[in-house]
Structures are given as C-alpha cells and as structure tokens.
C-alpha cells in the first residue's frame, strides 16, 4: 500500500489573530456581487456570514455562497485566501464567521477544531436573522430551512478539509462501517496494482476512482453505452458490469495501455488510434476510448467484411455526436490493411 500523503504544514501560529467571540470583526473592503466596493463596516445593522475557503479546494464553493447570499436574510461572503484571510488568522484553511449586526464576531468555526455540527451552525444562522421567527403551523419556517441547508453545506465543506488532511484515517473509518475492504490485485496495462477495495467496487470504479486510470469512461454505468469498454485477456468487456474482485489474475488493458501493447514500435499509437484520427472518428471524445477499445478487439473477431458487419459489431458503443461514419471508416481501414489487421494482439 502507498503511504498516506503528508498533511500540508499548518500555520496555527496565526491563532493569535483569530478574532475572539465578542470582539470587533477586522474591517476590510471587497467588491460585492453587484460590483460595488463595500466595507464590512458598511453592513452594520445586519448580520454577515463570512466563509473562507481556498478556491483550489472546490471552485464551485464561491458560487454556492453567492446563491446563499440571495436566499439568506443577511449578506454572505465567500473569501479566498489572501490578506483578509490572514487578518482573520485562517490564511491556509477553511473557516466560517458570523458577524452580528453590531460588527462583532458572534460565532466562529475554524478548521483546526473538530468538524462543526450542522445543527449548531443552523441555530447560529437562524438566531442571527433580523426577521422575527415565522409561526407556521408546522413550526418550520422557510428561514430555518434555508439556514439548515446552508449549515449542512458549510459543515460538509469544513469536514472535507479534515478528510483531506487525513485520507487514510477517513477511508479506514468508512471501510469499517460498511464491511470488509480487502486487498485486490489487478494487472492493468502490464502493471501490478494493489488496491484496498470492497467487493462492490466495479472494475470501472476501481480503475477510475482508486487507480487513477481514467481512460475508461462512465457513461451510463448500466452496460448500455460502451464508454467503459476495456480488454480482459484480450477480449472487450464492459468494466461497469463486473466487480474488480472478480478480475484478479487477468490481463486488463485500457486505452492508456493500447499504444504500449504494440510493443517494439514503443510509444507509437495503436493502428486503431491512428485510424480514428485519420478518419475523424470522434467529435466530443467522451465515447472515444470505449469506441477504440471495442474496435481494436472487433478486428480480431470473426465478423464479415461489410460496413454493416462493422455497424453490427460496434452496436454496443453509442456516440451521441454521431461520428459513426468516421468510426466505420477507421475500422475498415485497419481491417483491410494486412499490416494492421493482425496487430493489436497482446
């Protein structure tokens, strides 16, 4: 097994700079969503939610907070790392502050602590709302609903930081909770891989999510599209419809290993890859790895010589762009050339 990656150096030295509960929130200026320059102090009179998260963790996070800004009864701001984050002592981490209407810190969560509970954040957000509590018969107001939703997302974002810092520990907990994760040995593109997998992990997920081999694509995940096609012992199969644990001791080839399988020509494209390029056998490219893997195996199967035979042989590979004419032409070119028709054998 690989050793867990070391956690990035923490800069908890900034602890002294994290504003205390009840203290005045450090002021700063930034551009709001309408393009106006605003200072935090301009917003006094209403509570403010400040969320800090380095954008490289999740680029969609800032957009998420902008959406909440429209839903909450008070402004929400998402800040990347930078001078403001440094002033709040969270230069390299995720943190959430709620600033009350008087400009004081009424609640804070920094990632150095244990993950926050969504209920706790929801209570803070609800309590910070300037509006009176709704008294619907259900006792469940829209505002409370929004606050809970925001709270859950914030908790998730902060928890993820913890999970990322300790991937090995997080994974171990997961495995214990749901059953046995066992060592599965796969031979992929000539390399031995040793992966810690549950039995329910499909070969496709093992390749993509655990081994980082992302050539096989997840299209439908139900054996209807062919995007996940790989070779097992030289035969084309659908990696989404088999469990990785069942494919031990077999020779698995993905698109990443196809060129190498030509061998002596070292690094040269497989003839089918070259033919797909020559005949424009793709447009968006999502189905292409599956198409090429399927096609490279079709050449070795006893199909008839006609274009219709190719179409029938390839009917398990769907292309939404409709690149079929180029695909058929590519396959026929490889099949008709005696130099390439016999190649691609492993």
């Amino acid at each position, binding site marked *: 097994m690989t050793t867990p990656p070391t956690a990035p150096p923490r800069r908890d030295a900034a602890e002294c700079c994290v504003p205390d509960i009840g203290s005045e929130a450090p002021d700063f200026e930034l551009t709001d969503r309408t393009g106006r320059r605003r200072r935090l102090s301009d917003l006094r009179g209403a509570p403010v939610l400040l969320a800090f998260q380095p954008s490289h963790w999740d680029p969609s996070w800032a957009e998420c907070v902008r959406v909440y800004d429209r839903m909450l009864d008070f402004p929400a701001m998402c800040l990347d790392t930078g001078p403001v984050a440094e002033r709040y002592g969270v230069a390299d981490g995720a943190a959430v502050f709620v600033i009350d209407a008087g400009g004081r810190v009424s609640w804070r969560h920094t990632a150095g602590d244990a993950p926050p509970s969504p209920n706790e954040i929801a209570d803070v957000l609800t309590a910070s709302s300037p509006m009176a509590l709704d008294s619907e018969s259900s006792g469940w107001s829209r505002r409370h609903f929004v606050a809970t939703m925001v709270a859950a997302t914030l908790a998730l974002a902060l928890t993820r930081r913890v999970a990322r810092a300790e991937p090995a520990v997080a994974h171990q907990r997961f495995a214990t909770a749901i059953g046995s994760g066992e060592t599965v040995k796969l031979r992929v593109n000539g390399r031995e891989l040793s992966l810690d997998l549950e039995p329910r992990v499909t070969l496709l997920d093992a390749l993509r999510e655990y081994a980082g081999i992302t050539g096989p694509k997840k299209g439908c995940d139900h054996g209807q599209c062919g995007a996940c096609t790989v070779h097992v012992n030289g035969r084309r199969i659908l990696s989404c419809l088999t469990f990785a644990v069942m494919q031990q001791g077999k020779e698995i080839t993905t698109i990443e290993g196809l060129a190498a399988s030509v061998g002596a020509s070292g690094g040269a494209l497989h003839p089918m890859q070259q033919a797909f390029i020559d005949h424009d056998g793709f447009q968006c490219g999502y189905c292409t790895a599956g198409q090429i893997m399927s096609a490279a195996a079709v050449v070795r*199967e006893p199909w008839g010589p006609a274009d219709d035979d190719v179409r029938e042989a390839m009917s398990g590979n769907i292309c939404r762009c409709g690149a079929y004419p180029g695909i058929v032409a590519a396959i026929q070119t490889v099949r008709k050339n005696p130099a390439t028709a016999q190649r691609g054998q492993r």
Partner: protein
Amino acid sequence: MKPFDYAAPASLDEATRAGARAATRFIAGGTTLVDLMKLEVETPEHLVDLNPLADRDPSLGTVSELPNGGLRIGALARMSDVAWATPVKERYPVLSQALLLAASGQIRNMASMAGNLLQRTRCPYFRDTATACNKRDPGSGCSAMQGFNRSHAILGTSERCIATHPSDPAVALVALGASVRVRGPGAQPSAERTMPIASLHLVPGTHPERETVLEPGEVITAIDVPPLPFARRSLYLKVRDRASYAFALASAAVALDVANGTIRAARVALGGVATKPWRSTAAEQALIGKRATAAAFRAAADAALRGAVPHRDNAFKVELARRTLVRALTEVSA
C-alpha cells in the same frame, strides 16, 4: 449498492453449499446481476463467484460433443464463444443467430450461457424499486397491468404479472429441445438432475417471484442440445425497435424438415411476447404433413397466437408475432 461479502469457491460442492444460504446469489458473467444490484432490485448479502470453477474444469466453459451426436455447452461458456463455435454454426444455426442478435459484443464476451437462461425480466416496473411489482415484491401489485405495457407479454401471462422473458438464446434452445444439467448441494448422484429447458422456467401464475424450478444452491452445470439433423435448416428472426442492441418486440426460432415440398417435422418457439421462452407445439402440429406454403405458415402462426391476451399498449404484438413467425418459416423454407 448494498454491501455484500464475496466468495470464490474452489469446487462445485463448495459453491452449491455456499449458494444454499439465504440472501445468496451466484454470479457468472454479472451482466444482469451487477446491473440489478446497482438498482437495488437485487440485494444479496453473499455473492458466490462461479467463474473460477471453469479454470479447474474447462468443460464448464466450453462446447463439446455428446456421444449421441448432440452438443454439451458448459454453463460458463460465454455467449460469443458459443455463437462462433463451428458445430453450433453448422448444426444449430438458430442458436448461433439468436446469440449474435442478443445484447452487444462486449456483453456477449462476458455473459454466460446459464446466466442468460436465468436473466431477469426487463420490465421497467420490475427494475424500478419505487413502483409496485409482484415479481420483485410479492403481493405489492403489478404496475404494468394498468401502466405502460408496450414491451410486455401476451402469452403465458397472469393477473399478477405480464413481464416478458428477455432471452433470445433460450427461445432457440427450447425450439431445439435442449435440456439443462443441474447440480444441487448434497451428495452425488442424488444432487444431480436433468430437465428440459421447457420445464426450467415457470409461467408467473400466482407466484411471479418464482421464475424457475431451481432450488436454493442449485446451479446449472451444462446445457445439452440433442441431435436434430434438420436443425441445419433453422433460423432466428428478431424484430425490435432498433436495428441492433435491443430486446425483442417479437422473435421466432424455427426449424423445418421439408421433403418434396411437404413438412415432415417442425420446431417453433417465440420470444419477446411470452413470460417464458415459448415453444408452440400447436404451431408445430399445424405444420406437420402440410405443404410448405404461405397459407400453412399463416395457419401455424394463428395456432401459435391463439389464446394471446393483449393489454392496452401491446396489442400490436399479436399480429407482429404472427408476421414474424410467417416470415421466419418462409425464409427457412426458401
């Protein structure tokens, strides 16, 4: 997908014992089971992998000659290998064609022959755990009865279930009079039995959840195809919404023994229209002794579809199945 534990037994004895436990499924090709496990239609707690057994006993995964002139197809033989096996292509073209018209190239490389016989229905309500289905959840009702039932069966149905059996090869195999060899847990030879494929599957009746006569722990070890010389003239015709890679709306497996223009023997089975692979002895009887003419074929088709029970969206299948059968008989006798 629900978690499960996985075992790959080293022997058939071990496999049948492991398979007899509650909440256990055998897995071979996995092309149906993995799909249904993702949908949580199938939620086994234990999975018993049969594939490694073929490494120890190659006959489980290959086609071999029987002393009587028939063929034995190992239960773990893959659909594509059987489709392209020379004795199958030459002596039982109906089976080779049915196999090649089923699924896709990738799936045929994975799917086992026995697994193909035992695959579950494609009824969309069976596959959707949010809907009622007597087959998936006995007693919950049949959503297809009043729902969208265009793909459903018109033969062998009951008030409880109108789901179609989806296999193509099974239709060819019942036409050929093939049987399955079955092995259960316990001491040999009492643990072994053989039955015609025609008696393997059950019509839904009042218990649609029971699809075969197999008992817990029983596995199919082989499919035996009897000698049938006139099957060299046999044919599988499949009609579907797409040109390829779709389940049958109607299909026909036919074999004819014609001498001097007169039909001496006939085999007829229908797919895509019935709750199990549907051999029609009524159609066969209607053909025997008749001249091989369009009128005789039409009469046989009428006999095959007598008693068909259409529902709102699948009434077209009655005539479609008749025409499919007439065309198959016309082509095979040409």
